[in-house]
């Protein structure tokens, strides 16, 4: 087994990986930027190395530096987490060339699947259903128009090098194609240094369902069932569930088999996710493959009992899959809510600050994967996701009841969070009766901004909040500022610890 793993990431996923290393007896090495000097991922790791200034482009995105550190400290392997360099085939190639094990698929596979057109071609060839459209980049506006008319509007223009909801644009009218194509190309060039764009038929109000697979280096594949990730805002997932409550067992069998076929088609090894769109007609289409660990992997871990990060490490270490498909059974239901530092009613602006108070929820069926601790700093430089709250229940109802209970227990002071907004989402009829799709939040929640969504919730604590405000103001006016003298006989003060 590896002696030392360098974790090329930060935040909750770096913490998650360090914990897996700890359990496996592997030394974990964190990297940190200026801002992250004392961040939680540094606190939990065994070793920590400075990587550069706070901007990701100076630190977590600089493959050369990371590769260099890995070599210098004698790391046997690099875990990339998600985001940053996790799907960068050049980086992976560099790591491979340095004789260090990359905990993920090979650079060839990542390159192949990272190009969405070549991935579509491959899937089509291996009879994994793909969304109607082109499998080659658009070469001219005329081509684009022709394809659009053939498959029918509306269509999606997508960057071949894109993914994860980035670099895509919907076109409803034929005369909009030219401008849209230009803009998608320019954005794609800016984001991915590649302006190849292809066309997919626009699937009306689908759900987003994805299949988690594991493959070893000997051609063995299993799936860990699927996740439902339709609750999204601007293509960013907000809530994920496993299993998908939208599928019956027959469809579950079909889609998971398609997932395994997709992985096999690209000689995949390690953990990967095949994303599908699932439409109102009960058809599903290959959307893209994420060649890395997903943010939402804990819901799969909860229902299957498999520690995906540890499996990743074992697979990278050259071990054969220790689990067979028949050993994997779904138990119960799991839900994840992503906790963001953001101002929901202020255009979702990231909320910056120090975490002064951080009380985790606890008790049965509750898991928290977190990137923060008391007195962590939430900065402008990185993704504002603070933590993930994941619950398990014997069925969707119990998982949901536990989620609402745990959200109520979760206390954070110092930044604004999106916790309150989950009261609206999780209690919404469309979430409960499964009629949601990927446009659920866009259609039903965003129009209630700012603030009107709160009016749809019960006025549970209005009066209590009003009373507390008055009592605190009254107390404040009573207490005269003293010079560092505290009377222990004063009950008001005695409980307060400074």
């Amino acid at each position: 087994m590896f002696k030392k793993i360098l974790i090329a990431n930060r935040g909750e996923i770096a913490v998650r990986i360090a914990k897996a290393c700890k359990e496996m007896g592997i030394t974990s090495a964190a990297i940190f930027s200026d801002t992250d000097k004392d961040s939680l991922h540094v606190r939990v790791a065994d070793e920590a190395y400075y990587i550069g200034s706070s901007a990701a482009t100076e630190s977590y995105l600089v493959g050369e530096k990371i590769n260099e550190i890995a070599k210098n400290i004698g790391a046997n392997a690099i875990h990339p987490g998600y985001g940053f360099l996790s799907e960068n085939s050049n980086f992976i190639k560099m790591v491979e060339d340095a004789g260090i094990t990359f905990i993920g698929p090979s650079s060839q596979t990542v390159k192949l699947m990272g190009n969405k057109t070549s991935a579509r071609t491959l899937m089509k060839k291996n009879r994994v259903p793909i969304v109607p459209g082109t499998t080659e980049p658009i070469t001219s506006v005329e081509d684009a128009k022709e394809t659009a008319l053939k498959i029918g509007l509306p269509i999606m223009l997508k960057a071949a090098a894109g993914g994860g909801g980035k670099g895509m644009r919907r076109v409803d009218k034929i005369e909009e194609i030219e401008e849209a194509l230009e803009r998608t190309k320019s954005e794609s060039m800016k984001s991915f240094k590649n302006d190849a764009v292809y066309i997919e038929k626009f699937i009306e109000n689908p759900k987003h369902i994805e299949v988690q697979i594991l493959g070893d280096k000997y051609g063995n594949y299993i799936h860990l069932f699927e996740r439902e990730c339709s609750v999204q805002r601007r293509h960013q997932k907000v809530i994920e569930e496993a299993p998908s409550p939208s599928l019956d067992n027959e469809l579950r069998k079909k889609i998971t088999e398609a997932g395994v076929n997709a992985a096999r088609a690209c000689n995949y090894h390690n953990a990967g996710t095949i994303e599908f769109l699932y439409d109102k007609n009960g058809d599903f289409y290959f959307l893209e493959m994420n060649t890395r660990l997903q943010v939402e992997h804990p819901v799969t871990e909860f229902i299957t009992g498999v520690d995906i990060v540890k499996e990743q490490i074992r697979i990278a270490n050259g071990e054969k899959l220790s689990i067979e498909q028949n050993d994997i059974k779904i138990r119960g239901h799991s839900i994840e809510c992503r906790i963001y530092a953001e101002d929901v009613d202020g255009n979702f602006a990231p909320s910056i600050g120090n975490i002064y108070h951080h009380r985790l929820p606890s008790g049965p069926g509750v898991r928290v994967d977190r990137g923060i601790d008391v007195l962590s700093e939430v900065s402008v430089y990185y993704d504002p996701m603070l933590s993930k709250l994941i619950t398990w229940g014997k069925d969707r109802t119990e998982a949901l009841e536990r989620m609402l209970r745990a959200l109520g227990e979760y206390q954070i002071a110092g930044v604004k969070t999106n916790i309150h907004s989950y009261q609206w989402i999780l209690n919404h009829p469309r979430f409960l009766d499964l009629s949601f799709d990927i446009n659920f939040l866009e259609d039903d929640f965003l129009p209630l901004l700012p603030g009107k969504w709160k009016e749809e919730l019960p006025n549970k604590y209005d009066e209590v909040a009003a009373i507390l405000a008055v009592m605190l103001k009254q107390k404040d006016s009573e207490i005269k500022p003293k010079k560092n003298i505290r009377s222990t006989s004063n009950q008001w003060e005695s409980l307060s610890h400074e």
Partner: protein
Amino acid sequence: MNEFVVNLENKEFNISIDKTNKVIVNGKERNVELSKLSDFSYLLKVDEKVYHITSEKKDSKNYSFFIDGFSYDVSVRTLLEEKAYELLKNKSNNNHNAVVKSPMPGLVLKIKKKVGDKVEMGDSLLLLEAMKMENDIRATSSGVVKEIFVSENSAVEKNEILMIIS
């Protein structure tokens, strides 16, 4: 007996308080007991009910509370402060200007309105790129665009004034 006016989420509460663990909320008497657990954490009993509340004080009139997964921004004024506030509000109503500020540092991608355009509350005003995301800045009140202070592709700071709608 001190009297206060509390506003939260478009609701108003009139609350009076004395020192005997009693408050009167919109005419109804409540027994209350408050324990401070830390600077950010309070235990409030109202009659037989118990509430564990996370609190952040913004200033002498504004608090932000977090109760059982619900968040509240609360402003509280003494009767005197309330009178001053009303006066101010009336003044500004006569000369009503809504200031649109940038909620975060970023880059102005697109300005969707020009001076003189009518806007409804909720209309998209401009696109701001920040944290690698396009953020839609929307109007929080209705009116006419009076002035625009930024141009496309310009960088803005947090709280920088972007537009005035009057």
